[in-house]
């Protein structure tokens, strides 16, 4: 650690965690002229991070114009599929949009060590000081209980700051210590596990019908043995990543090992041919905050803000699966609010309140609020145990020609399929109404 980092110096802001939230906060603060120390516990930014594969980076348009010119991208997602499946069926809705392959782009696949290090580099370019391989082990409070720094695992490593921004991820021990997050909350977290398989770029492009630098993102439902959750597959330049996200609580109850769910998916007739001959490059796992708006913690106390996964900012809402953009959005908002507090010389929760109001005015909290009931639907047992197979059977029946029998009427087919699956019309209507309300 450089000598001038601790000792008597009081930083305007110490940001804990050089993920997308922390680096965005540090970037905004450094641009605003604040002294910023950005702490990272891994040997480099992104080394502890795993995600579902796609970054939507338009949130950077303002602070990093033309960010796409030097962002470390694997492929630009021009094809997105939603696949509903059973062990032997798959019904896919597939959209291809060539506009997503040119500026200002839409989603991109990228590896977190590349993307996170790139964004941290932008913060450093703006004047933030990045310190890696350092764990923030606790909060320092002043005589009146206000947060005024963090302890680290370096000898003599106490760091003083006017404001601390905790972007220390889904397990945020700083937010837990501050009483903002519960110690453990299996019901509102999912576990993501994934495998990265390597294939030559031209093989990927042929198998997944992609042009050069174009990518595919598949989101799947019905591939998790009835455990609430889903699967995903996305293409990198020379890799295909396949994985599942499942409710932590339900996974534990089902006594299923997570990697077995990936193995199921890899063996599925809709997925297996795409992975033929590939080599396993990396296996990874990470938790995801899934409680949404209803379980979102308080975002500020005196001298402390939380952002990104630490604040539960992640949208796993079936149609939309986003997280990195919310981390960046909350980091930028936290940085702006903190810069204002530093200018005013007031670091109380009240002085930091513009953090929340600015996110209510943009996508970060608006999207979360709009999707506040999504966790109820996405983690609904009926959806995973019954509806996915009901939909596949219905689709199979529609396209099965049963001559010499005439075609059955759609309504009769639906009645029969619903009955065969033991689904109650009342539940179906209720869940459909919930879905309609959420996605309206």
């Amino acid at each position, binding site marked *: 650690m450089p000598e001038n980092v601790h000792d008597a110096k009081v930083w305007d802001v110490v940001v804990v965690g050089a993920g997308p939230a922390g680096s965005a906060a540090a970037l905004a603060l450094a641009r605003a002229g604040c002294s910023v120390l950005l702490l990272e516990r891994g040997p480099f930014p992104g080394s*502890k991070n795993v995600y579902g594969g796609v970054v939507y980076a338009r949130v950077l348009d303002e602070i990093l114009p033309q960010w796409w010119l030097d962002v470390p991208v694997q492929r630009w997602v021009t094809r997105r599929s939603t696949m509903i499946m059973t062990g032997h069926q798959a019904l896919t809705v597939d959209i291809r949009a060539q506009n997503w392959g040119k500026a200002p782009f839409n989603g991109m696949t990228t590896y977190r060590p590349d993307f996170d290090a790139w964004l941290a580099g932008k913060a450093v370019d703006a004047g933030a000081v990045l310190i890696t391989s*350092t764990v923030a082990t606790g909060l320092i409070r002043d005589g009146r209980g206000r947060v005024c720094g963090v302890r680290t695992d370096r000898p003599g490593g106490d760091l003083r700051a006017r404001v601390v921004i905790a972007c220390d991820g889904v397990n945020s021990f700083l937010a837990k210590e501050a009483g903002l997050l519960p110690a*453990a909350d299996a019901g509102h977290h999912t576990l993501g596990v994934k495998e990265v398989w390597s294939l030559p770029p031209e093989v990927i492009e042929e198998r997944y019908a992609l042009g050069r630098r174009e990518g595919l993102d598949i989101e799947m439902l019905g591939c998790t043995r009835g455990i609430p959750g889903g699967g995903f597959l996305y293409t990198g330049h020379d890799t295909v990543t396949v994985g599942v996200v499942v409710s932590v609580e339900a996974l534990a109850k089902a006594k299923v090992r997570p990697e077995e769910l990936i*193995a199921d998916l890899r063996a599925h007739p809709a997925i297996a041919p795409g992975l033929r001959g590939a080599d396993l490059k990396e296996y990874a796992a990470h938790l995801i905050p899934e409680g949404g708006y209803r379980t979102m913690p308080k975002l500020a106390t005196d001298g402390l803000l939380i952002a990104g996964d630490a604040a539960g900012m992640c949208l796993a809402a079936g149609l939309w699966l986003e997280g990195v953009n919310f981390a960046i959005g909350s980091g930028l908002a936290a940085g702006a609010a903190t810069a204002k507090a530093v200018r005013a010389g007031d670091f109380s929760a009240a002085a930091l309140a513009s953090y929340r109001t600015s996110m209510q005015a943009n996508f970060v909290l608006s999207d979360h609020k709009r999707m506040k009931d999504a966790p109820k639907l996405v983690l609904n047992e009926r959806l995973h145990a019954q509806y996915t197979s009901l939909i596949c059977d219905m689709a199979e029946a529609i396209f099965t020609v049963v001559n010499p029998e005439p075609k059955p009427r759609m309504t009769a087919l639906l009645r029969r399929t619903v009955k065969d699956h033991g689904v109650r019309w009342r539940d179906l209507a209720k869940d459909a109404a919930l879905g309609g309300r959420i996605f309206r």
Partner: protein
Amino acid sequence: MSMNSHHVDPPERLPVVAFEDRMATVEFRVGQRAHIVVDSDVCRSCTTQACVTACPANLFAPTSDGGILFNYEQCFECGTCYMVCNSQGALTWSYPDGGHGVVFRKG
């Protein structure tokens, strides 16, 4: 290929990945200190031992006396174990010291 073949190919034979091979793809900079400590005495009275199946790195092994044997070295630091643990005090959980532990390359 004969055009009149009227059977489909048998299901794909997929490479089975042994768990050790799967974990061998992950880089770990193992620290001196065990960042997670399991109190096996507490685990003996646990009826679920959910950590055994839920841990994605498969680090929790049931022992013949009903306890749990844990090895911290190949830990993803994900937090699943403490989230599913229902025995108060069985797990002491912290992050590895700075710079140590898992290093993802394609996360």
